[in-house]
């Protein structure tokens, strides 16, 4: 009886938003007479930083300081439609909507500034809240003065609208599954390497270290991205070894109904966590960004399963990898069965390795 260590690796790819499934986001922006920017976007911020990210995108693309931007997503009457915060879409889909609206605002600000400064708009740019003539940086006009001129001199309200939609793609060839429009390019890639310690007497799997490498296209806010990756890693740890909403699926019995019986990862479960942010820009995300919200907890469970195999030589084919499942798999192995082998594309198990015969096995048989 001993503790064994093992390492495992798993990789994943994931789209941003419901790629080709028709999920619109819309935004509109208005400029107050003092040059401050009001963004109306329906994206709820569930802690993923949607407000921060979209405000950053607006500030950057107009050319004003971040703290000039207010973001209102709280009123369903004044906010345009956003399908919501899900499917890793808040940065890419809703972010593109505010980006387009901000570009329109910038164009209109430059038109007013052009009339006031008597310089062609193509020769102007906005930098840090100030309109500047290209090549003659001493010729400037505050965005606040441009907005005031629009309001009190030109009788205009400077606004911009933007919308992003990857329309529903219809299947045109049922044989091949070909559809009538291409997917967008904001596809994220990631991998997790997990190091575990497995006690072959108790079956307890302890996660020692997890290294996550996530291709986010462009980290618009690197610390927020890291927080999302760290949070996803610990959720993935929970899915991998702790959290079981249907321990005897499909029977609903023995579900944990409180924190004493449903094991959410706690401080004490925290392994060493390392984050690698890869910036491999996409052609269609704002500033090259890709969404990683949902995939943040997807690569850890298979990496943990592979690490368990590396440690004690059994594949546990069902999550979470509880002590019971580890011990049963070890018993099956000791009885001479349970070693998987590769047949073409398929991993084949001669014996049922998991506790639960309903969810496992089926997708792993050689004729599937």
């Amino acid at each position, binding site marked *: 009886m001993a503790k064994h260590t093992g390492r495992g690796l798993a990789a994943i790819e994931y789209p941003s938003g419901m790629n080709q499934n028709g999920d619109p986001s819309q935004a509109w922006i208005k400029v107050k007479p003092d040059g401050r920017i009001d963004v109306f976007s329906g994206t709820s911020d569930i802690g993923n930083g949607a407000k921060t990210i979209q405000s950053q995108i607006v500030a950057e693309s107009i050319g004003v300081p971040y703290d000039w931007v207010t973001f209102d997503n709280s009123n369903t009457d004044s906010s345009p439609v956003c399908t919501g915060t899900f499917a890793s879409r808040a940065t890419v889909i809703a972010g593109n909507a505010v980006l387009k609206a901000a570009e329109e605002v910038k164009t209109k600000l430059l038109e007013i500034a052009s009339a006031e400064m008597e310089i062609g708009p193509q020769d102007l740019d906005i930098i840090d809240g100030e309109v500047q003539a290209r090549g003659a940086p001493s010729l400037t006009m505050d965005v606040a003065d441009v907005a005031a001129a629009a309001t009190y001199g030109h009788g205009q309200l400077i606004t911009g609208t933007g919308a992003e939609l990857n329309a529903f793609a219809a299947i045109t060839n049922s044989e091949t599954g070909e559809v009538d429009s291409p997917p967008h390019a904001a596809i994220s890639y990631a991998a997790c390497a997990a190091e575990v310690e497995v006690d072959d007497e108790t079956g307890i799997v302890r996660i020692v270290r997890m290294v996550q490498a996530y291709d986010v296209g462009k980290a618009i806010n690197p610390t927020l991205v890291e927080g999302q*990756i760290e949070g996803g890693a610990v959720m993935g740890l929970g899915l991998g070894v702790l959290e079981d909403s249907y321990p005897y699926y499909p029977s609903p019995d023995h579900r944990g109904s409180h924190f004493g019986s449903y094991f959410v990862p*706690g401080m004490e479960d925290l392994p060493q966590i390392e984050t690698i942010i*890869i910036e491999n820009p996409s052609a269609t995300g704002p500033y090259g960004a890709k969404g990683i919200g949902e995939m943040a907890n997807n690569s850890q469970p298979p990496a943990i399963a592979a690490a368990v195999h590396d440690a004690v030589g059994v594949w546990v084919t069902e999550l979470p990898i509880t002590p019971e499942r580890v011990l049963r798999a070890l018993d099956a192995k000791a009885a001479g069965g349970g070693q998987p082998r590769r047949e073409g594309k398929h991993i084949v198990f001669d014996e049922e390795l998991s506790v639960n015969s309903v969810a496992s096995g089926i997708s792993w048989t050689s004729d599937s």
Partner: protein
Amino acid sequence: MNITVNGDELEVRSPGLTSLLRVLRDELDVVGPKAGCEAGGCGACTVLVDGAPRRSCLTAVAAIDGAEVTTVEGLGAADDLSPVQQAFVHYYAAQCGFCTPGMVVAATHYLDSGGSDDRKEIQEALRGHVCRCTGYVKIIEAVAAARGGNFDLTTTAEGGYTTVMTGDAK
């Protein structure tokens, strides 16, 4: 019954077995402490009772008649954040924010009673406070750095990540 909440002495009319959490939230409209599980398992409802951290969901109000209660609101104001609150902002230690009131109260008590910036000790001190979002890493960083406060809240702490950049857009 009377309790002092964040310096205000208040009369409590709820029945004596009402939890302190429900008295605070429903009767006194002090909603910083969050109702996570109301069974002692998550820590989101943590407040200080006479200076010591207590799970307000498990505390019958009659048991603390006359006590001084400090909630997250009592630690600092929006324009005058306490050191721990500042650190949580600076380190992005909150995502959805549901665990934050309990974390901040518990961390404040830990540091005020001489707790060190050792990660393992912080983990031990905040054990039992569940966070579903952050993976705890930034919470521990914030608590380790919190003593003394004075963070520039217009900036964000650099994370511990490594960045790898590849070529052009595709």
